[in-house]
């Protein structure tokens, strides 16, 4: 990788990159046609080794690149509506990429947490206005189906319902409660355990 | 287009059939499905035609009006197309569903009839610069069974053939004002020349082969098709408008082949249509005809 860094190969859509072979995998920004791999985006050609003699050919577009939430992505969303059965939210961030326009997300009651799914009370987990972390599990007709059934997923930023003027976010005081530092009011939430970035890297 | 759900296996079956030049309904790649054509069945229109091409059912009515010609083209009459995708053709046309398709058909027809060589706008002229005929060609799609472009253009041509314009005499009044007198006698009328009126031929590319008159199922399988507008002039075919449709692309040589196929088919089709229209006219005769209509 580092050796390739100074001799960057620029490619444009429709440019032939290489032959299709058994040990070459198509990465992002490429497509296959008649036994050859072609670029479908403009950018820098990357050839990464992915173990077992396999090479991934991908095209990395510098600058802006378009992101659409895909199954498995962790997204940041704002809760819009809560009902007894589901939560409607607006996805505005995918992984660490801020989106141009928000997409609709749907979080069903069954997907709020991993165990005791039947005893979930949506109103005790989310309030409109909360910012949540969630994972995309499917793409429905009109919206993305989300889940927060993980320790690290759930509400990250929330405000107490009566403290509109101060706008001080609440602080988590447990897996299911958040407290306002000014008024000391406690409110129930499905709290995400936000890990510091350093520890996420360590896990990987 | 009307939507037909096809599985991969069905698509492959159609594809193989096309490759072997033996399509699902037994046709070769250059064959049309059986057509039924009848003219003059709408009593309130100046001209009308109904065309049934297998499952595609089209009814065309031509209405006339007197209008002022465009100052740029004082000797020309006017034509206006309108396509209505009726909701009983396919449920998707309900509401605004058919408007995209209708617009596409209107644009193709307008494009094909644009040239004065394709349609002689001078026959619609009454008094140059002052009065002309304006024809409204209303196309109603009753059932949608594929190959709408071809069916619509055939029906439109037949309806134009059937159109009777009442004879108009003009008297010159004072100060250059003219007064038009329209004949009351329903048999005292003029016809419109349709020799050069274009026909649209859709050449559909399925797999590596081109074919004409695709059925609704075949349309789903095709990646791209060329709509060729063929106008016959002095016994030679001319192109009066072509475009690609269907969301695919094709090679230049394929394009040429498609054009050639389209032209030869169009020529043949034009000949047949003219022959059939003559027969139909004789059958119907000057007397009030016994129309068959939608009954068989």
């Amino acid at each position, binding site marked *: 990788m580092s050796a390739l860094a100074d001799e960057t190969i620029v490619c444009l859509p429709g440019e032939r990159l290489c032959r299709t072979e058994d040990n070459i995998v198509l990465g992002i920004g490429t497509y296959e046609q008649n036994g050859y791999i072609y670029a479908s985006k403009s950018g820098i050609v990357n050839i990464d080794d992915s173990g077992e003699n396999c090479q991934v050919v991908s095209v990395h577009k510098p600058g802006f690149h378009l992101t659409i939430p895909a199954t498995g992505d962790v997204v940041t969303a704002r809760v819009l509506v809560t009902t007894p059965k589901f939560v409607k939210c607006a996805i505005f961030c995918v992984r660490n990429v801020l989106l141009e326009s928000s997409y609709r997300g749907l979080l069903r009651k069954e997907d709020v947490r991993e165990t005791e799914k039947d005893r979930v009370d949506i109103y005790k987990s989310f309030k409109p206005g909360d910012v949540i972390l969630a994972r995309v599990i499917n*793409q429905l007709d009109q919206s993305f189906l989300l889940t927060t059934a993980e320790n690290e997923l759930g509400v990250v930023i929330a405000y107490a319902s009566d403290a509109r003027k101060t706008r001080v976010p609440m602080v988590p005081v447990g897996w299911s409660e958040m407290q306002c530092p000014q008024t000391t009011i406690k409110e129930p939430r499905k709290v995400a355990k936000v890990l510091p970035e350093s520890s996420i890297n360590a896990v990987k | 287009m009307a939507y037909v759900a096809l599985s991969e296996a069905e698509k492959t079956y159609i594809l193989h059939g096309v490759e072997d030049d033996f399509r699902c309904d037994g046709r070769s790649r250059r064959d049309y499905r059986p057509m039924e054509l009848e003219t003059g069945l709408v009593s309130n229109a100046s001209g009308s035609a109904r065309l049934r091409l297998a499952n595609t059912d089209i009814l065309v009515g031509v209405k006339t009006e007197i209008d002022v010609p465009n100052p740029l083209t004082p000797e020309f009459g006017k034509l206006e197309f309108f396509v209505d995708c009726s909701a009983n053709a396919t449920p998707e046309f309900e509401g605004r569903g058919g408007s995209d398709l209708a617009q596409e058909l209107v644009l193709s027809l307008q494009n094909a009839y644009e040239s004065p060589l394709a349609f002689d706008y001078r026959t619609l002229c009454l008094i140059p610069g002052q009065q002309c005929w304006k024809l409204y060609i209303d196309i109603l799609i009753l059932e949608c069974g594929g190959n709408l472009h071809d069916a619509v253009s055939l029906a439109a041509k037949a309806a134009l053939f059937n159109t009777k314009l009442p004879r108009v005499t003009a008297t010159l009044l004072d100060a250059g004002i003219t007064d038009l007198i329209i004949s009351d006698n329903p048999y005292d009328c003029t016809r419109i020349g349709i020799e050069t009126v274009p026909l649209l031929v859709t050449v559909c590319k399925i797999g590596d082969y081109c074919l004409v008159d695709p059925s609704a199922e075949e349309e789903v399988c095709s990646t791209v098709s060329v709509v060729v507008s063929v106008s016959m002039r002095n016994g030679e075919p001319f192109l009066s408008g072509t475009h690609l449709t269907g969301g695919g692309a094709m090679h230049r040589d394929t394009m040429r082949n498609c054009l050639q196929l389209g032209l030869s088919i169009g020529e043949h089709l034009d000949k047949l249509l003219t022959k059939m229209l003559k027969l139909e006219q004789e059958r119907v005769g000057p007397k009030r005809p016994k129309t068959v209509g939608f009954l068989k």
Partner: protein
Amino acid sequence: MLRVTQTKNSLLDGASIAEELYTTPKDGEDFFESLDKPEKEPTKLAPRNTFIRPGVLTTVRGSAYMEYGNTKVLAIVAPPKELIRASARRMNMGVLNCYVNFAAFATGDLESVAERERHLGSMLTKAMEPVVCRTEFLNFQLDIRVLILDDDGCLLSTAINCCGVALVECGISTYDLITASTACIFRDHVFLNPSAKVEELLWKHRGNSNTNATSSTSSVQEHGLIITASMDTFEQIAQCQQCGYLSPATYVKLLDYTLTINKSLRQLIRGVLTKRVKEQHELDLREKAESALEDQRLEDIIEKLKKQGLDEFIQSNIKEDPYVKRI
């Protein structure tokens, strides 16, 4: 736009008003006479002076501006949205929508603007459909908006070129680069990249183009316009729209002219896009270096905090979620 004839008007007390342009067919005739006509067989197949710039707008990610001679076009690609219409969702492909708008001052002829916008929009959609990898955004619709700032002919082909660049700039997967050009034939003269005046002549004066021709000679006076969009990697024609009245031989001739022009346009667009990629790549590298510096700084702070034991304090404050499955 063509030739403004000023007439004295007594009612307006000597002030003059512009008469309606192209009032008589004669004007067109005069104009054709005054036009310097190209040779019957064009020798130089080249595009007009072209200026393309991707990424002109900072608010929208995928934008491109293109000048083709005097024709000026701006294209914007909006990020994909969820499909609204239910019927379109049954296709296993994304939906592409193109909208064309004329700026109020773009064209002299205001009457037909709405109709032209619709027509151009639908033709543009047809031309762009083959190039976009529509399978990559299922259940989404992609909106492309084109604003025409100045109209001097070749509108559709310029719009196609501009949209192609905007798509690449936006990072939407495309199978190839798309280029388009226009050629027309009028009274045996082949005009490549016809200007607005010639196009207008072709449309509005279709009438008198052959008044004498048909009556005197039996040969047919061909006239027509052809717009070809091509993708050259696989030598595919994405769209080929023709109007007018052409013999098949002339059609193929014009088609080949436009394809040759497309090839040279492609070189130009390639150059522009390659430069753009390099530019952005350098920016990226610089940004990366800066953020690395920042990371370093933060790490130092964290290191300091760790020594003080604050991190432990924060970590210990969060209790484990009892509803999570334990492995």
